[in-house]
């Protein structure tokens, strides 16, 4: 059977063996958490002051803005500081720093039954729980499930592709918590009014396909669909193309293709929020890499420092690079004292040899980037335009449609920094568009 997939893409070594069979373990309670106030949309205003005692699950930041999600304390303890700290996004941001009292005392929470909730109830619950896209983008979920007027969702697609090498956090959730995922999907269907729920899983994860298929037995409108193992299968646009055979318009949103795509982690968090009334204060993170003695999948409190998790996993040889996320789209960190965010799916440690950036050579125009680009751009031409500040040309050749997946730079035999150049061009072109308006 020919598997559904999308145009272009690459086949990097999966590198998932290290953590694939490690069941989700709970990381030790951190002594201190650092919780940035901007985790999805507009930055929140702090609701606590230095010296306040807080409980786990207590809301500590919120915003009036629609496109913003509140943040919650992930441990009980005392607010030690509210200050600007380095974040894994590469920027500094204001964070609430909480010293844990070691008690892990929680706010009183109560769950509800999905049958009793209306779509609006669920939407409110999503916002109050601080749900954001946990695949990395951290877009506020209550906004994502609210289509612009006149548009509606036909299908909800759960993104179980997990196409980034090394990462296995979604995989473990699919294998260990299939009922929760199906419950979450039913909630997505209810909140959006969509007819059909799909779960797209790369075919190199047969255990996940089997466990979710079993859990979905009896659900008439839920379908588990194996898709080809190819990066970036888990990119929103590519998954929609693979599952529905439709494209998201260049200037549109997934809802224009009738689709809502949700991450496995977010779906699990929604199930927890409904069943237990639990806000998003912990997530599964894959901590992995050759220099680590114990690569594993950990249930981690949001705000836990990378350095604490690395201590737990025992760094046993030299580290060249520390990455938040996967190796294709992750962000390299300059210091290990950065917090796990709601969107942190992985902490990847590379050896100095693995991290080495090969010397860049002139483009030989082999066209591999053109064949690999899942958006069907011509990266080699855009690379030149962006480096020569030829912004009109870059815009004409659609640099703004680049999803920064990294396929072009991955396949480039000249090892050119294509993503870096295109990212720069995209930012410039988008800024110019805003100016024109």
């Amino acid at each position: 059977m020919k598997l559904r997939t999308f145009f272009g893409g690459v086949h990097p070594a999966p590198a998932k063996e290290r953590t694939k069979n490690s069941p989700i373990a709970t990381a030790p309670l951190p002594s201190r958490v650092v919780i940035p106030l901007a985790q999805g949309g507009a930055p929140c205003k702090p609701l606590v002051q230095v010296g306040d005692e807080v409980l786990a699950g207590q809301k500590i930041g919120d915003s009036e803005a629609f496109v913003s999600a509140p943040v919650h304390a992930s441990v009980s303890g005392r607010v030690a500081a509210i200050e600007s700290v380095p974040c894994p996004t590469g920027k500094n941001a204001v964070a609430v720093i909480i010293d844990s009292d070691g008690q892990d005392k929680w706010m009183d929470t109560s769950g509800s039954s999905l049958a009793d909730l209306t779509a609006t109830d669920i939407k409110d619950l999503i916002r109050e729980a601080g749900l954001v896209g946990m695949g990395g983008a951290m877009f506020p979920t209550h906004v994502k499930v609210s289509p612009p007027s006149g548009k509606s969702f036909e299908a909800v697609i759960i993104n179980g592709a997990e196409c980034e090498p090394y990462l296995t956090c979604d995989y473990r959730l699919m294998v260990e918590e299939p009922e929760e995922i199906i419950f979450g999907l039913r909630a997505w269907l209810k909140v959006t009014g969509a007819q059909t729920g799909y779960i797209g899983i790369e075919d190199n994860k047969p255990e996940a396909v089997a466990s979710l298929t079993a859990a979905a037995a009896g659900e008439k409108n839920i379908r588990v669909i194996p898709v080809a193992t190819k990066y970036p299968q888990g990119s929103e646009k590519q998954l929609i193309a693979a599952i529905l055979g439709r494209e998201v318009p260049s200037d549109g949103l997934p809802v224009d293709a009738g689709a809502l795509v949700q991450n496995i982690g977010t779906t699990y968090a929604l199930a927890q929020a409904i069943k237990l009334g639990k806000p998003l204060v912990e997530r599964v993170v894959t901590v992995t890499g050759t220099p680590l003695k114990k690569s594993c999948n950990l249930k981690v409190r949001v705000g836990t420092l990378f350095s604490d998790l690395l201590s737990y996993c025992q760094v046993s040889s030299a580290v060249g690079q520390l990455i938040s996320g996967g190796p294709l789209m992750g962000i390299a960190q300059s210091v290990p004292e950065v917090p796990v965010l709601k969107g942190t799916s992985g902490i990847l440690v590379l050896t100095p040899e693995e991290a080495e950036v090969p010397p860049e050579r002139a483009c030989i125009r082999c066209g591999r980037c053109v064949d690999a680009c899942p958006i069907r751009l011509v990266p080699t031409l855009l690379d030149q335009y962006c480096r020569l500040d030829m912004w009109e040309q870059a815009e004409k050749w659609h640099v703004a449609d680049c999803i920064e997946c990294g396929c072009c730079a991955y396949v480039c035999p000249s090892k050119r920094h294509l993503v870096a150049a295109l990212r720069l061009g995209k930012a410039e072109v988008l800024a110019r568009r805003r100016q024109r308006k």
Partner: protein
Amino acid sequence: MANKDILSGEGKLLVSSSPHIRAQETVDWLMWQVVIALLPAVIVSIYFFGFRSFYLILLGTLAAVITEAAIEKAMGKDITIKDGSAVVTGLLLAFNLPATAPWWLVIIGSVFAIAVVKQTFGGLGYNFINPALTARAFLLAAWPQYVAGNFPLPLDTVTGATPLAVLKGTAAGTLPTYGDLFWGNVGGVLGETSAVALLAGGLYLIYLEVIDWRTPLSFICTVAAFTWVFGGSGGLFTGDPLFHVLAGGLILGAFFMATDYVTSPVTPLGRVVFGVGCGLITVLIRLWGDYPEGVSYSILLMNLLVPFIERWTAPRVYGMQPMQG
């Protein structure tokens, strides 16, 4: 804590743009694959045309490599001769000359290809036309008596005409059999005669995905189609497409020179357009031009159109309407 020492004690975390992993393939690997793919033709050439063939090929290659190194040294640039691209140019230049060519002609050709066509524009990746073919065109203009005209016949000491010249009637001789054309037992330049050796190399490159199948396929199919329709003396559809495909430099050109990365389009559709264009020009020259052979000029002319072809054949961007792209 040991952890701290390793991570921040020395402050050596590398910050670089994503992606943080790269495929194994390098420019060097790609170019050396082309060299490997040309070796069967080198061996067949030595078999049919003797030791002098080996001598000229070696001379052409060495001259190309030394010229590249000398220019890069003089310009204070990195020496890139180990990437294999100069070797490919030297090999192809020698492949485009007959076994009777004087030794200095090969050297002048290689020096011209590297110094004028390639390095003047900045080296690998920057030249806009194929260096080996441009050098051949230059030699043909300057010393036509050595480049075209009489060709040594294989396994023989007498000289004769190429199959295409015989076919065209510009030279006397008997037409070879398909078998001779297939194995390379015909007159011609060093590297073009053996269809089987070139096909083996070309298919090897396609199998490894070093080259795209689109260009050679569209090039060869176009030549076959048009020579069949217009190439016969008995009216339309009486031509001999198989003869036209096997004779002359079509297979060498289609697999090894029209696929030159630097001077051919990067878009998939562009490669088809490029191949069809090469085929059309080849047929025009072969059937109605003064020269018996048109492969090398067809590729050079199409090289010049590459920027336009790319503009016309940009792929339809995801989420764009077909006509907007």
